[in-house]
């Protein structure tokens, strides 16, 4: 085009320009080395240790530890808690995100802060609040005792505690995503005569599906891995254990089984964590595509 001046650097000049904002090679090598050492020590070694200890007594012992009746019932309990907590909190997350992202109202930031509460309290406190409500000195104890419903040292308490700690996960993922996507598409659909459910099913849901899945994955990982809150609720009763609790019992030698068995059950949880990480990376990539598309002003797929 006439009037523009093309600036052409020689390759030497370009190299000097890049060099000016790059650290010398030895610094880069040092930093990368420090990164790998730090992460290796703090992240990889514990992970590798779990699997190494799990298999230290051989494959047969590994499988025996997993087939043990206590282990199986712990696995069942974990799956049950997740199967109840995740769908309910997903549904809640969708409802809350809809109310918060698609409407403007007074007190919205207070509500968002309140939603984050379970995420920021210690798991021990999370468990304790349910013991205070349903435990032996709790508010509801007289009533529960009358009808012989014992929540605290029973599966119900585990499920409630799990629901508490996984409460915000889906909402936290969906709210920024839906806020970035705005309300234009839904309003357009409404003007064209869509009912509420149609709106959600055919306009909103396709836009949020990756973020929703991401939130569900995180929610599930937390639900299956929750330890502190469930620990408080269950105390030391053997009959109701989740997998993390069973790992604790085996490690402390309070159950039939040894160190290798503890790590065997732990390895299942570690595998769950790795699968979660893989899915997380995949979905994060998908969601950021949607998020940036929304921020740029259009939603593609």
């Amino acid at each position, binding site marked *: 085009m006439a009037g523009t001046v093309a600036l052409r650097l020689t390759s030497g000049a370009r190299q000097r320009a890049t060099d*000016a*904002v790059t650290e*010398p090679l030895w610094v880069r090598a040092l*930093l*990368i080395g420090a*990164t790998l050492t*730090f*992460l290796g*020590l*703090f*992240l990889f*070694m*514990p*992970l590798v*240790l779990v699997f190494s*200890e799990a298999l230290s007594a051989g494959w047969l012992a590994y499988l025996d530890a997993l087939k043990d009746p206590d282990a199986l019932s712990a696995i069942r309990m974990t799956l049950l808690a997740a199967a109840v907590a995740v769908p309910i909190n997903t549904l809640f997350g969708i409802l809350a995100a809809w*109310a918060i992202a*698609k*409407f*403007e*109202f*007074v007190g919205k930031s207070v509500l968002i802060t*309140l*939603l984050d*509460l379970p995420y*920021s*309290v*210690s*798991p*021990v*406190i999370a468990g*304790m609040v*349910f013991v205070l*409500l349903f435990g032996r*000195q*709790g*508010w509801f104890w007289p009533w529960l005792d009358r009808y012989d419903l014992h929540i605290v040292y029973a599966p119900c308490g585990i499920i409630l505690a799990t629901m*508490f700690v996984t409460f915000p996960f889906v909402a936290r993922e969906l709210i920024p995503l839906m806020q970035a996507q705005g*309300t234009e598409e839904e*309003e357009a659909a409404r*003007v064209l005569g869509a009912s*509420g459910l149609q709106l959600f099913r055919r306009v909103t849901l396709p836009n949020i599906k990756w973020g929703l899945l991401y939130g569900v994955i995180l929610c599930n*990982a937390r639900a299956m*891995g*929750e*330890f502190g809150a469930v*620990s408080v609720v269950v105390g030391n009763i053997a009959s109701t254990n989740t*997998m*993390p609790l069973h*790992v*604790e019992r085996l*490690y402390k030698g309070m159950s039939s089984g040894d160190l290798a068995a503890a*790590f065997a059950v*732990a390895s299942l*949880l*570690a595998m769950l*964590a790795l699968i*979660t*990480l893989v899915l997380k*990376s995949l979905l994060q990539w998908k969601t950021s595509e949607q998020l940036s598309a929304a921020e740029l002003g259009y939603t593609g797929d």
Partner: protein
Amino acid sequence: MSLKQRSVLPGFGLTMGCTLSYLSLLVLIPLAALFLKSASVTWADFSAAVTDPEAIDAYKLSFGASFVAAAINAFFGLIVAWTLVRYSFVGKKFIDAVVDLPFAMPTAVSGIALAQLYSRDGWVGRLLAPYGIEIAYSRWGVIVALTFIGLPFVVRTLQPALEDMDMEVEEAAASLGATRWQTLRRVILPSILPALLTGFALAFARALGEYGSVIFISSKWEKVVPMLIFTKLEQFEFGEAAAIAVVMLVASFIILLFINLTQWWSRRYAT
């Protein structure tokens, strides 16, 4: 001004109602029980529980170890975030994904793995035992566990801040004669300082409340506050447990406030 803007979209009543009900039932009422329980204790009992020597030791360990762990994470987290954002090397994507491991791993699993790793015959413990350094079952073990837990917070908070940085500012500094180190110290660090502080505070807050990763690597004599609360609950000392928990919650709230203030302050001075 009305409480809610008019909107054509349906479903506000239903969704808001469900949200508030579920929030109240599952979160607000149980948390209220905690505060009411601690309020039902007399002031004398409350302060006795909160100032008990065991409790004071627990506060010192919790706040001290969490602070050190968060500081370690701030330092190394900066290095990790820098290399992940600025450099490319073999396996970078893999390492980037694995940084989230402490988020995804159940705390009981990381707890026993770290305890085993640093115990006298663990892979790291046995290297240090001849020098008389014992990490497991001591406060150093607690610091190690809390560092593991807080690792992703600093890295994940710094990465977007580093990515958002304009190369032009660094190039300008270089063209004005700054060495790389001067540029780092006077241009880059100040602009990522808010993110660094936020990450530090998040790691600190998380470390304060941590239970599962810590209980295996610490011992009866080195109790962090969550462990102390757990012990009180086991002994059915609900009032004392509630009192200590309230102190913890207030501390966490102050930290959250600090995070928000830092972000507000940084926005005031942002370019």
